[in-house]
């Protein structure tokens, strides 16, 4: 363990802090970390840093919403509707495209479906997250996180409905459990991809601002 703040916690704060105040926030946290290190040792200081980083991230997220509530709501709703529509259209497009590939053997079938799954479950969500972050310039992580949160809330609502339906049909618990996790795994790739896409765009912005200064 080095006597530096935890890198992951630093990155988390850096992702959510506005570009113009990121240096101030991270510098303040590091200054306090040095004080904690001298007083209580490395383990306690790192624990303190993680706790502060998580609290700070939540405050920065909520603070960004409070500074411009209407703009944030409009961006979240527009992104949610746009991304959901595009996700559906692109997914159907990929499936149609794969359906046109002449499949003569087992290997071709497996590889074409693997490629399609990679595009549908990884590339498309990442590209949409990146696009949302481009539109939400300066608020990349706030908007992508809130859109992802909305998608996860809807997913869990749907899961509850599906689970209730399966249980009411008298299906064994094992089957209900398997279906539940299949839907959960598939459903989580979209919000997760959006956040990672936003994160990649944000990191690029941070890198560009470092070069500029």
């Amino acid at each position, binding site marked *: 363990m080095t006597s530096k703040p935890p890198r992951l916690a630093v990155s988390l704060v850096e992702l959510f802090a506005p570009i113009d105040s990121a240096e101030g926030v991270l510098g303040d946290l590091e*200054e306090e970390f040095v004080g904690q290190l001298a007083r209580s040792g490395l383990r306690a200081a790192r624990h303190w840093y993680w706790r502060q980083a998580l609290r700070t991230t939540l405050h920065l997220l909520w603070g960004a919403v409070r500074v411009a509530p209407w703009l944030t709501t409009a961006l979240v709703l527009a992104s949610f509707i746009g991304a959901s529509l595009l996700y559906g259209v692109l997914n159907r497009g990929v499936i149609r495209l794969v359906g046109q590939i002449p499949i003569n053997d087992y290997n071709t079938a497996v590889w074409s479906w693997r490629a399609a799954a990679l595009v549908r479950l990884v590339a498309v969500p990442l590209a949409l997250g990146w696009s949302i972050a481009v539109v939400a310039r300066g608020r990349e992580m706030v908007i992508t996180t809130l859109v992802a949160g909305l998608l996860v809330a809807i997913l869990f609502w749907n899961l509850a409905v599906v689970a209730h339906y399966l249980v009411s049909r008298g299906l064994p618990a094992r089957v209900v459990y398997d279906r539940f996790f299949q839907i959960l795994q598939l459903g989580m790739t979209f919000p997760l991809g959006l956040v990672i896409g936003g994160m990649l765009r944000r990191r690029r912005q941070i890198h560009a601002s470092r070069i500029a200064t």
Partner: protein
Amino acid sequence: MSAPAYLGEFEHIVLLAVLRLDDDAYGVTVRHEIETRTGRDVSIGAIYATLSRLEAKGLVKSRAGEPTPERGGRGKRLFRVTAPGRRAMTEAQRVLARMLDGLNPLESFS
């Protein structure tokens, strides 16, 4: 002259801390000032979120300080209260004083 901006409780506390610290108001010192005087454990994020809001309202102004080694080579973001900020604070104090006028808080709320 426009009407003074409305201040929330925490905004009021942060503004007072910035005023007390004069030329040395930045995240760490504001946090310590609040902790020492109110006993509240607040995060750096809460301070920055509030200061950003106050800056958007034009009640504080910020400037970048010099980078220092104990801050990992990062600069401070120093804050000071603006004239509208002082007016908003004066108005908030006046409103509080008017509401308390004729009341003994210790007797009235016990």
